[in-house]
């Protein structure tokens, strides 16, 4: 751990946690990432390993088996995982997001009953908001949850579900009432529920080892005690979770950008043209300088938002800014990394072409960057 990272981690405990993450990343993630990406193999065992190490419940209360870590620490762990293997860093972020509704809006009884298993390390979660026809326009989602005695019956299709078919539980947003944002409620659905199935996984340009699929709900009966928060509060719950999820994606983006920067820097120091290492040619050196500046500013941006959240202050605008900046920065930085490596960068012999493909998805998920700009503009207008 370098001095800068040490300075960004507030406690000895957080530093030890980061060292553990570094070790897991170096020993268990990095050696497997490229092959798993090529083969589109979901690394369930890796999630089990990092779960047992306590990384699947970091921001949640110790009382329920979590790590009671501030977001500023949890996000740096996500960044470090993503630096070695985006699918794992992003998986931790999605899992954390899927626990958010219950942890923040569940009753004590619900939390005591389900949360320890969800964040204890053995289980993996997924978050079902988007639908084939309602992505950014989530307020108009159509998946229905109809009350039937002391159960709800869920029908509909959810789309772009990270861990679809792999997860042990699904946090599902479905319509229980009127059209629009106020008619949506949140449910915690067990993966074993009858009528719940995963469609064939999507074939993606990158992050292929992270399974993404549609989840089909056909008369899935969910006991009413698995409804989280107030009836009709689902959209608020979803948006609040997304604010946190956006920070997770921002951290992932910084991890990918850092990986690209590190690879490009090492290459530029060793590759010689015109009698000197190419990093000493200003055209390349300045490219790397800009990559480093964007990446470090990104880290500062997500940490600024995280500190607001840790203090209990509103952070939605800063989360949107961090998500927007970090993911755009990762896109540009990975493109530049390929450029620094030249022809070699365009081959699969080096990881930078993979980073480039991975960065793209981060500009899309947890709210496209166009939606982030909308969030920021609205916040500016409100003042």
């Amino acid at each position: 751990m370098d001095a800068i990272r040490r300075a960004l981690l507030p406690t000895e405990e957080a530093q030890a946690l980061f060292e553990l993450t570094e070790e897991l990343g170096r020993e268990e993630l990095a050696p497997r990432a490229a092959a798993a990406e090529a083969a589109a193999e979901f690394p369930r065992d890796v999630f089990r390993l990092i779960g047992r190490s306590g990384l699947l419940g970091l921001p949640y209360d110790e009382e329920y088996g979590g790590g009671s870590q501030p977001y500023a620490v949890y996000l740096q762990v996500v960044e470090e995982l993503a630096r070695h293997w985006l699918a794992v860093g992003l998986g931790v972020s999605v899992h954390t997001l899927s626990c958010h509704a219950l942890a923040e809006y569940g009753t004590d009884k619900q939390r005591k009953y389900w949360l320890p298993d969800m964040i204890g390390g053995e289980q993996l979660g997924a978050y079902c908001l988007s639908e084939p026809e309602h992505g950014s326009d989530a307020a108009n989602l159509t998946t229905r949850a109809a009350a039937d005695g002391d159960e709800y019956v869920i029908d509909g299709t959810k789309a772009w579900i990270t861990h679809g078919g792999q997860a042990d539980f699904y946090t599902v947003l479905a319509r229980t009432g009127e059209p629009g944002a106020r008619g949506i409620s949140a449910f915690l659905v067990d993966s074993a529920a009858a009528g719940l199935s995963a469609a064939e996984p999507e074939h993606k340009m990158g992050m292929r080892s992270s399974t993404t699929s549609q989840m089909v709900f056909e008369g899935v009966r969910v006991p009413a005690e698995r409804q989280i928060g107030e009836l009709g509060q689902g959209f608020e719950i979803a948006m609040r979770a997304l604010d946190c999820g956006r920070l997770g994606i921002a951290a992932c983006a910084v991890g990918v950008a850092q990986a690209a920067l590190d690879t490009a820097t090492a290459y530029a120091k060793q590759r010689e043209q015109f009698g000197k290492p190419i990093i000493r040619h200003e055209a390349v050196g300045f490219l790397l300088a800009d990559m480093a500046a964007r990446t470090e500013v990104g880290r500062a941006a997500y940490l600024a938002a995280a500190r607001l959240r840790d203090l209990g202050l509103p952070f939605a605008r800063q989360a949107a800014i961090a998500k927007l900046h970090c993911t755009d920065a990762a896109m540009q930085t990975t493109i530049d990394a390929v450029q620094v490596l030249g022809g070699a960068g365009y081959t699969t012999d080096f990881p930078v072409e993979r980073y480039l493909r991975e960065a793209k998805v981060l500009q899309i998920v947890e709210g496209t960057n166009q939606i982030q700009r909308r969030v920021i503009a609205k916040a500016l207008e409100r003042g």
Partner: protein
Amino acid sequence: MKIVVLVKQVPDTAADKRLDPDTLAVDRGAVDGLINEMDEFAVEEALQLVEKHGGEVTVVSMGPDDATDAYKKALQMGADKAVFLSDPALAGSDALATSEALAKVLGTLEYDLVILGSEASDARTSLVPALLAERLGLPQLTFASKVEVDGSAIRVNRLTDYGHDVVEAALPAVVSVVEKINEPRYPSFKGIMAAKKKPVEALDLAGLGLDAGSVGWAGSRSKVLDATVAPPRAKGTIVTDEGNGGSELVGFLASKKFV
């Protein structure tokens, strides 16, 4: 059963190590220290034995004041408590002096079994396990790739060049382990947090009642007289095949007496 595991803090094997020009010992301040890798296998084996048979694991370490990472890692993995022996007069201890100090520490503890790594990655003498067993008057079962405890008896597979020997002894005993024996666990975050509350007993030579003259530079029988930096590796020979590649290769191998 009560198990004592000995762990050593060593310089990171991946880092560039250098010798202190005055003492000709490894400059431990210049690189990051961490637990000797093979000692992690010793800790893991102790934890597994205690999980199976019950009991507790005490980790013992000796080193400079700031060499605390090794025993902390063992506590994070799950060891119950630690004893840390540190004293400026211990600096320069060779294997013989080290075994004297460690034997003295073990004399203050109750144990059924002592486990340690077969070698440390810094000096790689593999002497301490045997020296320690001799000083304690206990059976030594070294290079263990498998350990079984049955009541008051212990049986290990002792790795040899041709396979393994099965060696048995009565407890208490000293066992040194090799990497083949298990796969050390990662600490969990909870383990890291719990480790900070675990008891650590700090000892110095006075507290231990050990004469400074019998350890450290004064008590060591091996002395480093001189050291030179290894020359950079020479470039290899490249044979370009111009029809005579085969005979060139055979000539090279013959010059090295390989054929």
